């Protein structure tokens, strides 16, 4: 199998998972959505196990760990969101945890949903919606519209373009990184299927996945922080 075939297989593979009998494939549910359901189910179960019987006193180590984790991650995300954007912390943390899980789901043998551009596009759409909603809530519709002409009227087209560029870059960055990692992993497996993939797998599936999740979330919170300033 040469590289061309490999790329074709990775990039153009039929990703339909549930084929609906109507609409001529237009309403097919992709594998990424199904994997996302699996991730959601895993997260739900893990959360239910981790957060059961929380107490105020005499807490278990598990509860202490969960509490300090939540406080810690909220501090990090809330710090980059700024004071005014702090109310969006919980959504951002949710996205971060989901992306972390999604990028690492490859460890369990699933195809990461973030390898599907539809998922990253949806995430980016949510992010940009949140950014603009935050701006409108903070400044009012008029103030939001006026914000496009700041600091000077000449930057107006750029700011309008940014509305499209930001989500596009978010979406493509995440998608490209994950698919790139997968392609490289496939290539490494072609070179030597034993031993060699282990450190790279550790890097691409765990480290890189977490970094990309953090980058996505960090940029989103940065945009929100900028929007509400």
């Amino acid at each position, binding site marked *: 199998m040469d590289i061309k075939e490999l790329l074709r297989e990775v990039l153009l593979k039929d990703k339909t998972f549930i084929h609906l009998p109507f609409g001529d494939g*237009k309403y*097919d549910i*992709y594998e990424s*959505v199904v994997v996302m359901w699996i991730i959601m189910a895993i997260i739900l179960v893990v959360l239910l196990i981790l957060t059961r019987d929380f107490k105020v006193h005499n807490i278990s180590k598990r509860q202490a760990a*969960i509490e300090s984790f939540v406080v810690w991650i909220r501090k990090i995300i809330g710090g980059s969101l700024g004071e005014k954007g702090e109310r969006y912390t919980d959504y951002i943390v949710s996205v971060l945890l989901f992306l972390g899980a999604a990028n690492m789901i490859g460890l369990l043998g699933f195809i990461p949903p973030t390898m599907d551009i539809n998922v990253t596009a949806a*995430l980016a759409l949510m992010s940009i919606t949140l950014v603009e909603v935050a701006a409108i809530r903070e400044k009012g519709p008029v103030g939001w519209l006026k914000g496009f002409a700041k600091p000077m009227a000449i930057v107006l087209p750029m700011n309008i373009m940014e509305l499209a560029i930001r989500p596009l870059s978010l979406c493509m960055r995440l998608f490209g990184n994950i698919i790139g990692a997968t392609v490289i992993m496939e290539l490494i497996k072609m070179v030597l299927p034993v031993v060699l993939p282990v450190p790279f797998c550790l890097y691409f599936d765990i480290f890189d996945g977490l970094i990309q999740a953090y980058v996505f979330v960090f940029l989103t919170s940065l945009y929100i922080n900028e929007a509400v300033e």
Partner: protein
Amino acid sequence: MLEFSLVNIICVIVNLLILYLIFKKFLFERVDKVLMQRKEEVDEATRAADIATQKALDTKKEYEEKIALADEEKEQILADIKKQGYDEYERIVNDAKKKGEQIITEAKHNAEVENERAKEIYAAQLTDMVIDAASKIAATKHSTQDDRELYDKFINEA
């Protein structure tokens, strides 16, 4: 992998919202509840501690006032006692003075009486001597010489 599918994007968005609700309900709300309860308890404890401290301070103040009152009372009593002591002292000293004066007066009186008596005795002796001298003079033949001797003798004897 590269074509967009609106249905799937919507599915993912719905999934994300559900996921957010899952996180909110089963992670953040539970953690927040515990944290809030703990915070309330801490606040409650702090308030109780503040009240207790205030109470203790009030009691301390009260006792300090009481002690100050006691001090005053003590001073008063001490002053009273001192005054009494002074009065007593004065009285005793006065008594002693009076007694002393009386004794002195009596002594003076006694001395005068004694003096008078001594004078009387002297006078009597003098009279006797004069009579004696006169009788001696009368009994002896006398010249100027004798008279002089006699006078000298008399004066010497006197």
